[in-house]
Structure formats: structure tokens, C-alpha cells
């Protein structure tokens, strides 16, 4: 499995660290909304198909990336720097 880092180019997956579901919306640190915190910690879409994910190129430039990966085929559909906070749109 290759992930194309926007800085480094295509690299083997062993250079990357998975940092979790990219669909989560972290509540403000001062938020008292327990439902929002519960959703942030536990709720996952767990799709069979395209999935928004956060990865870090930990064995390379160390940038955090937004990656869309197909959970069935492991095809990497898109990669972008996570900086800026824009969600990567999945294809479906």
C-alpha cells in the first residue's frame, strides 16, 4: 500500500502512522456538552468503502495528512495536508 504524501511523494505505508477517523469534530475544550464529547470519543461511521482518515507521515516529513482510503480495497483516493482543517471530501 502506497500513500502519496503531498510533500514527499509516494511512500510505503510503513512510513505512516494512522491517527484515526477524520470525520470526528472535536468539541471546544471548555464544552460541557456530554453528548458531543461522547460522539467524539465513541461514534464511528465504520463504512465499507471510502473513509476520511487522519494519517501522519511519521517516518518522513512528519506532516499530518487527510487521507481518503477505501476500507475494502485499500485504494488511497486522495491525500492532503491536514493543516487548514478542511475535510477531504470522499468520492461517495
Amino acid at each position, binding site marked *: 500500500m502506497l500513500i502519496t504524501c503531498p*510533500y514527499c511523494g509516494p511512500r510505503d505505508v510503513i512510513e505512516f502512522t494512522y491517527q484515526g477517523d477524520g470525520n470526528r469534530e472535536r468539541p471546544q475544550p471548555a464544552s460541557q456538552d456530554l453528548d458531543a464529547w461522547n460522539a467524539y470519543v465513541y461514534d464511528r461511521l465504520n463504512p465499507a468503502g471510502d473513509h476520511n482518515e487522519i494519517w501522519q507521515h511519521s517516518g*518522513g*516529513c512528519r506532516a499530518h495528512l487527510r487521507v481518503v482510503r477505501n476500507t475494502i480495497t485499500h485504494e488511497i483516493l486522495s491525500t492532503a495536508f491536514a493543516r487548514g482543517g478542511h475535510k477531504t471530501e470522499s468520492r461517495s
Partner: protein
Amino acid sequence: MAEQPLPERQSPLEPDYHPGSHGNFEHGVDVILSEMRPGTILQLAAWPGEEKQLIEIIGKVTGLALPDGAGGGVSSGARAGFGFAPGKFTVVDEAEGLAAAFAGAITPAIGTLTDLSHGRTAIRIAGPKAEWVMAKFFAIDFALPAFPLGAGRSTNHHDIFAQIQRSGPDQFDIYVFRSFARSFWKALCHASEEVGYEVQ
């Protein structure tokens, strides 16, 4: 305050650094390995939006004209520099004391400078089989069109981080953690045995 002369730096490779020809060299030496021992290794980082400013400052202080692109770099004589991450650069000088030359030039609003001169070990591999030997360690494309002259790469071998700059058509400079340098050096020597290597 007067500058105190730094104590002479010891090489971490010393116990396993054996100048001469080794391995399968009867039919010729196909790679030359050496420790570069630069006096200065710096890491410079720009805050988002300040990258061009930092490249300009590096140019003014060192004379290195870094290209503005991912992994772009230059290697010329005593000094070398390359991008290794977004907004981050490694700058190397044969002489000690380059960090002082940046003092005042990189303001807190632009970015940061970290002196890694004692924290990294620089190893050079050169020769017709340099790409071949490097490919045993690192899962990146070492062919000249994919890895042009002067360019830098951040990657790792067995989970240990390394920075690599192409300093010649068949020559690479590898920057590894000082504490892992001897281990990497021994592995590099083993990997070079089959092609015949010379330690300079």
C-alpha cells in the same frame, strides 16, 4: 562574552571505522564510504506563511540558493541545504559556528533555528553502486530523475529516521541520529560488502 573553542568532537563511528578496502573488492571498489564530519548541522523551520522569507534568509546568510519546492536543495562545496519537510530545512557547513551567523536574522515571528551539529552524524556514500546499496535500506526511488541533484528526502530504515541529500550523480549524504550512527554505519558496511567498498 568571548567564544570558547569547542572541545574536539569524537566520532561515534570510531571503533568501527576502518579505512581501507573491504568486502568483495577484488574486481574493483564500487562504493566509497566516509564520515563527513561537518562543523555545523542546523535545522531551520518557518511558521506557516513565512517559508519564502526563511529561504531568503538562508540565501543571505549562507549563499545557498534553495529552490522553493518540496525537498529542493543545493550541495556546493563547503555548504549544503535542502528542504526535508513543509517549511523546514537542513543547512550544513564544513565549518563550525554557522548558527551564530543566523542570530538576529531569524526573528521569532519568522521561525526557529535548532543547532544539531552534535546530534547528527553525516555519512557519505559514493560510487557506481551507491544507488544499489541505498535501495537496500530505504524504500524510496534513488534514480536521478526521481531524486535530482541537491534534493533532500526524509525517510527511515527499520523505523530509524534519516535525511538523505543527493550531493552528486552517484553520491548521497546521509544524516542519522548520532546515537544510532554506529549501528547504521555497521549495517551500511555489511550492505556494501558484496559490491566491494572502501572506507576513506
